[in-house]
């Protein structure tokens, strides 16, 4: 029982990370129809930003966290301006390929400028300290992950409902042309979407790096894939769906860690995707997604 409660929080905290990443993907997708597969590289950007700061002698964890978040947000804005704006009106595949290209360039920048091998970023490792709450063992990090993610989501909800640019982003998800007819600048709406996706990714990245204590050039690959799956699971383009999908994915993963015997531990990711596949058979539009009529292809 103890073990179960501890693992439940673990599931929520891992799910929270996926939710943050999935939200970023979903926000950009909803306003411009782009699946930004370079999104995972924001984790790398955060990691290497912290690594560079630490190498220059600044090891205050708070300073590193703030610096990482600012850098990722800035990089997201620069990528939008330099890479994605020129292909905004191109067919969706062009945007997708651009995203892959951006991802590969960033990975290779980390690789060339730092090292192809993992580097230690131990500054945040103190967060993995165990604390005892009501007889259960948790880490500070787990509470932070759940708490900060909740605050971030609440902040996002406020932004989308309470600010005009937030309203524009929601409206643009359905009809960008009419948003422009209101006199809202398309560039501003899309740049804001990227900035938010970067900010959310940087929070996820900090937790991710705190858990691992190390960075490597390809560390963003698996998380972005998981975030993508979370989006599909929740209903692609739906923001609440991204959160639900992320949490569900985290819980399923942890559940499998608990249930699978040690010998089969290697099958964890495969089992996760199998379960996701089964869910999608019954709800192809995702949990909160709307059903899109694609036409009958059975002949």
């Amino acid at each position, binding site marked *: 029982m103890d073990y179960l409660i501890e693992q439940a929080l673990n599931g929520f905290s891992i799910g929270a990370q996926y939710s943050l990443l999935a939200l970023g993907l979903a926000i950009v997708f909803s306003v411009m129809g782009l699946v930004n597969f370079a999104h995972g590289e924001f984790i790398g950007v955060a990691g290497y930003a912290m690594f560079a700061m630490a190498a220059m002698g600044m090891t205050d964890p708070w300073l590193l966290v703030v610096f990482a978040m600012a850098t990722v947000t800035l990089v997201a804005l620069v990528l939008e301006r330099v890479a994605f704006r020129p292909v905004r009106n191109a067919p969706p595949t062009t945007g997708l390929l651009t995203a892959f290209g951006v991802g590969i360039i960033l990975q290779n920048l980390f690789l060339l400028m730092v090292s192809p091998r993992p580097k230690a970023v131990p500054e945040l490792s103190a967060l993995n300290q165990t604390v005892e709450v009501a007889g259960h063992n948790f880490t500070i990090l787990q509470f932070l992950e759940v708490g900060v993610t909740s605050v971030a989501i609440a902040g996002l909800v406020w932004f989308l409902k309470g600010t*005009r640019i937030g309203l524009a982003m929601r*409206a643009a998800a*359905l009809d960008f042309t009419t*948003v*422009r*007819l*209101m006199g*809202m*600048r398309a560039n501003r709406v899309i740049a804001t979407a990227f900035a938010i996706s970067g900010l959310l990714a940087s929070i996820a990245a900090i937790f991710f790096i705190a858990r691992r204590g190390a960075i490597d050039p390809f560390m963003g690959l698996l998380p972005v894939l998981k975030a993508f799956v979370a989006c599909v699971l929740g209903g692609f383009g739906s923001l609440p769906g991204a959160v639900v999908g992320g949490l569900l994915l985290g819980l399923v993963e942890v559940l499998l860690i608990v249930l699978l015997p040690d010998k089969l531990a290697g099958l964890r990711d495969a089992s996760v995707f199998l379960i996701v596949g089964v869910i999608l058979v019954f709800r192809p539009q995702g949990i909160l997604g709307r059903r899109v009529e694609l036409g009958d292809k059975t002949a």
Partner: protein
Amino acid sequence: MLEIDGVSINYGPVSAVRNVSLKVEKGEIVALLGPNGAGKTSLLSAAMGLRPLAAGSIRFKGEDMRRLDTESRVRRGLTLTPEGRKVFANLTVLENLDLGAATRAKGADFHADIEMCFELFPILAERRHQTGGSLSGGEQQMLAIARALMSRPSLLMLDEPSLGLAPRIVGQIFRLIRDLRQRDLTILLVEQNAHEVLRFADRAYVLSTGECRYAGPAARLQEAGALMQAYIGELVA
């Protein structure tokens, strides 16, 4: 106020509008009539900068619009209520109106304008917290007009406001449009519902298959057969 001069618009190899000139003076209600596919919507889209011009020029308040993006045109007082209303279905009535004022800061006059819209369309006040998608067609059209008014336009372009509405509602909408003239608004009204509109428009243009077939007083088009002739063009003449 608005001068469209020798404008042509192409969709790829297909020409939608050929050499059309149109003028709207301050305080006028001008009707732009014509059958489906005549190029009316294309012309309005081009005026808003959503469609590139193949030829010709568009001036608003004396300023060349060709270099300005859509957003800047709205800032200068040009507004379009698009065909099909295009109310933001997932946003509430209030949020729709809020976005309509996107070009202005949310100061004291913002709330005064919201109140003005609710005065003009009392039903919207009742529905203020409902989503745009939950409104009826007539209510959506009212919301679309109110939303356009929130940008404080000097020229309001309406693309088929009567589309898909019950006749009783259409009369109501047209009465409202007529009343807007008293609010220092100039109106360019695109319609298929020609007979109704000609009763209150000052001047009219008729587009057919991308060409201008009539330009002149609205009253003259009301004469027997004149409208038919303008629609069909040379065939009858």
